[in-house]
């Protein structure tokens, strides 16, 4: 089965986020009040061939830790969905 994987990479809590802070500081002058907690990260999308959804998740998580993120400063969340829209676990 082929799965779509969406990885959201974020800076870990406590790591300075100068891009997020700069955007947040600019918002009031653009007329956007009340917007807070701005953080900037990145997304990575790919497809992966796997036995089932669990296998796809495990291998994608390995890929995140070993390559897509630097665990010293970054965290990631993953979402895995079958390309045909049917859950691999249920198929």
């Amino acid at each position: 089965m082929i799965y779509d994987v969406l990885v959201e990479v974020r800076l870990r809590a406590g790591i300075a986020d100068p891009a997020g802070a700069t955007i947040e500081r600019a918002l009031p002058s653009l007329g956007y009040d009340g917007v807070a907690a701005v953080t900037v990260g990145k997304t990575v999308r790919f497809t992966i061939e796997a036995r089932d959804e669990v296998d796809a998740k495990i291998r994608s998580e390995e890929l995140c830790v070993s390559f897509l993120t630097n665990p010293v400063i970054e965290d990631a969340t993953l979402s895995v969905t079958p390309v045909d829209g049917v859950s691999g676990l249920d198929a």
Partner: protein
Amino acid sequence: MTTTVGVVVFPGTNCEMDALVAVEHIGGTGRLLWHADDDLAGVDAVILPGGFAHGDYLRPGAIARFSPMMAAVVSFASDGGPVVGICNGFQILTEVGLLPGALQKNQGLKFLCKPTLLRVESTDSVITAQTSVGVELLVPINHFEGNYTCDSETLTRLRDEDRIVLRYVDNPNGSVDDIAGVCNEGRNVVGLMPHPERACDELLGSADGAILVRSLLNAV
């Protein structure tokens, strides 16, 4: 016999000739090493120079870390061989795990390219052995992601083990504890954001970097 220093070139590296010329200017022999090869060709020391290895895609150093030459560099370093990462080379050394911590975007989100004053904090490393603690050196920086960070336990260990080799006199990028360069436990691997190879002759505005390159040549 002169010391032969291998300078590793990745796609996107752009400071290899600066490093090579600096090594030869100080009296060593420089040899370029291609990242896709896996043999250090018998060099006595290794420099990972500045630039944008693999375009800095994903993160600086993230892809360079998987180059075959890096396996050879890690093995060389494990055997005590002198390895210095300058700028992008420092980022690669943290990504490959030879040095702790990480380099994130500069605090002010500006690309910084200017001379900076560094203070030597330890002479127990392959690039500072011929200097003295407290000596100030004028060496340029040229980076966007040079803001050194690590967790508090790592920082405590770096301090306790005298592994902070160089500090900025006037912190330009937000690096924790003004760190400009650190070394590994064996003190044979050093990473620094400033470019000593660009400060090896008064014609370049400063010759203060020469003592660091000379220390490396004599570390062998």
